[in-house]
């Protein structure tokens, strides 16, 4: 049996699926050999981007770069290899009273992926993107050399790599800051909004909250358009917690982890089931406003509670469509987008609305800018491309753009916004698709 590294690879949306060479090495020397001996390479973390960003002719998986290097417990500065997952970081940091400054909606992403996608969380308006807290990283460039990148050293590469989608090289190790917490719990308020106007008002009123996010029921029309639940939260102080939690404020109880065992057949998700799901989700909360203390896992990572939930969408897979529209035009844009989705009947199981704050102009490859962002999951089917086209029209008209890490079919005029990333070595299928299709 001779090794054959070609295999089927796909990211979180199970679309597209490719058969390409994928390798993982743990020594920098071997990574260098690998990079030098292949024409086109793209790094892949945990494959949690939805589309084709971390797919390429040859894929370098950072799976084996999974070791911690140092943890300054006094100042909350951690250094690890790029394949370490945020979940691994939390496992050691939370009991020590530290949390990630910025986390996406899943903790199963790698630290390298967090930089390459410049991820944002529910606190973008207050605390920005992941890179704000990164002090330095090591990058392997095209020639196999390893350079240290920080705001002072190789700062051009530092900023190009942030949000650079792996197109500047392979991030090997990362050093970043953590934030102090007194407990593993969040003081949460969730408030029902009847329609878009109300949810926009709630967002603006919640400006002083660190975390805000809303779930939208996307099948509502007319006066119910934009019916949603806003959730806002703060890390709870120990003294605020109810007694039963205050005793061991930094420890969570172990929960059972349900798993989706196989791909659901296609018919399970259709307009009707989505409607029912959203209705239940919305109706579960009977009161207008609920205040509670919930653990950080439930607050930040509700979907992680079900392993492999992406299989619910069946073998044909799904996409996530996430756009940002500048703030002034945002409300009108969102309204048109939600109307288009409701009219298409192609309901989204999951629709998350957020208000982005100001962007950091130095991080020029970062996706977020001030405005409204909406993320929607759609099952891949024959009608989807048409819907994406219509949504792209609206995003374009309102001066918005698409989040690359979730893109697999939007038009390139909305995704071709990266700078200083040209490389003949580090090439992804996504980037090729975008530059070959200048629609």
């Amino acid at each position, binding site marked *: 049996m001779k090794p054959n*590294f070609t295999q089927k690879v796909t990211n979180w949306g199970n679309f597209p699926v490719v058969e390409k060479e994928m390798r993982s090495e743990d020594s920098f020397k071997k990574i260098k050999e690998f990079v030098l001996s292949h024409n086109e390479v793209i790094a892949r973390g945990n494959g949690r981007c939805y589309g084709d960003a971390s797919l390429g002719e040859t894929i370098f998986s950072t799976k*084996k770069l999974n070791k911690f290097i140092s943890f300054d417990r006094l100042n909350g500065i951690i250094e690890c290899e790029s394949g370490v997952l945020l979940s691994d970081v939390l496992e050691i940091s939370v009991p020590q009273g530290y949390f990630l400054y910025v986390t996406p909606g899943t903790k199963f992403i790698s630290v390298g992926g967090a930089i390459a996608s410049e991820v944002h969380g529910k606190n973008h308006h207050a605390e920005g993107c992941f890179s704000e807290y990164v002090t330095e990283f090591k990058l392997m460039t095209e020639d196999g050399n390893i350079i240290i990148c920080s705001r002072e050293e190789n700062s051009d590469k530092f900023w190009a790599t942030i949000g650079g989608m792996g197109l500047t090289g392979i991030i090997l190790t990362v050093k970043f800051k953590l934030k102090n917490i007194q407990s593993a719990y969040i003081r949460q308020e969730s408030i029902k909004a009847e329609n878009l106007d109300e949810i926009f008002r709630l967002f603006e009123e919640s400006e002083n909250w660190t975390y805000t996010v809303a779930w939208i029921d996307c099948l509502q029309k007319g006066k119910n358009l934009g019916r949603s639940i806003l959730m806002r939260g703060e890390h709870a102080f120990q003294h605020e917690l109810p007694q039963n939690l205050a005793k061991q404020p930094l420890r969570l109880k172990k929960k059972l982890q349900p798993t989706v065992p196989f791909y659901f057949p296609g018919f399970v998700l259709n307009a009707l089931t989505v409607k029912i799901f959203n209705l239940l989700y919305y109706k579960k909360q009977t009161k207008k406003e609920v205040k509670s203390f919930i653990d950080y896992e439930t607050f930040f990572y509700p979907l992680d509670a079900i392993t492999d939930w992406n299989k619910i969408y069946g073998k044909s897979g799904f996409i996530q469509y996430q756009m940002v529209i500048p703030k002034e035009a945002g409300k009108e844009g969102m309204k048109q987008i939600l109307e288009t989705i409701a009219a298409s009947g192609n309901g989204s199981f999951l629709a998350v609305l957020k208000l982005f704050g100001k962007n950091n102009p130095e991080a020029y490859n970062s996706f977020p800018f001030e405005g409204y962002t909406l993320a929607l999951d759609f099952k891949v089917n024959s009608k989807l491309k048409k819907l994406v086209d219509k949504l792209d029209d609206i995003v374009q008209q309102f001066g918005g753009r698409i989040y690359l890490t979730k893109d697999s079919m939007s038009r390139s005029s909305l995704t071709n916004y990266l700078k200083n990333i040209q490389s003949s070595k580090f090439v992804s299928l996504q980037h090729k698709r975008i530059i070959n299709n200048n629609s």
Partner: protein
Amino acid sequence: MIVLGSTSEVAQAFVEKALQEGEKFERIYLFTSSRETTERFARHIDVKFLQQSEVIEIDLMKEIDYNKFDHVSSNVLFCAAGYLGDGTEEGLYDNRNTEKIININYSKLVPVMNFFAQKFESRRSGTIIGLSSVAGDRGRQSNFIYGSAKAAFTAYLSGLRNYLFDKKVHVLTVKPGFMATKMTEGLPLNPKLTATPKQAADCIYKAFKKQKNVAYVLPVWGIIMMIIRNIPEFIFKKLKL
């Protein structure tokens, strides 16, 4: 804990599992042929568990200086040293390949194991865990050099278990089937029969706690190997396994 073959992903996963479960070790001795990789791991467990360790280089293909590890003593020995080499079909007549497989999996390994076994015997406590292989359960045309070395190692572990029984030292033989590790990367393995290092570590830890004698990592391998062991030789010799 003493770890032979510390670059092994299963060994590393086992160390992490034990520490996660709250096992305490004064020091972990990481024996390795690759200092760089093992030092990364040593730092990793220091960051993650505040666990002290010591990296000790050892090359089973060379003369071994036992003085270098006279001070090494613990109540758990985990041996994951092993070498797959080229399978029989491509590596049978390559003597270097054959020697390396036999040395690392058996002939050079056993004296090192004995060195520590003696310490366990005199302490009259502890557990020795040896990673053998299902390949040692019956010689098959595709990798019987490796299989025969593992068969010898399995026999050694079973004898050692017997010998140490009334000296209060327990020996656990682990037989992983296919595993998704560096050793097997790129090989076409059936995912249903393939365990991840983490799965293997969980299972080995359980077997360690329950003082099992022999453990297959995935239970299905116990059944498969029972069938394979029981196929009559006149049929078996004709099979392409």
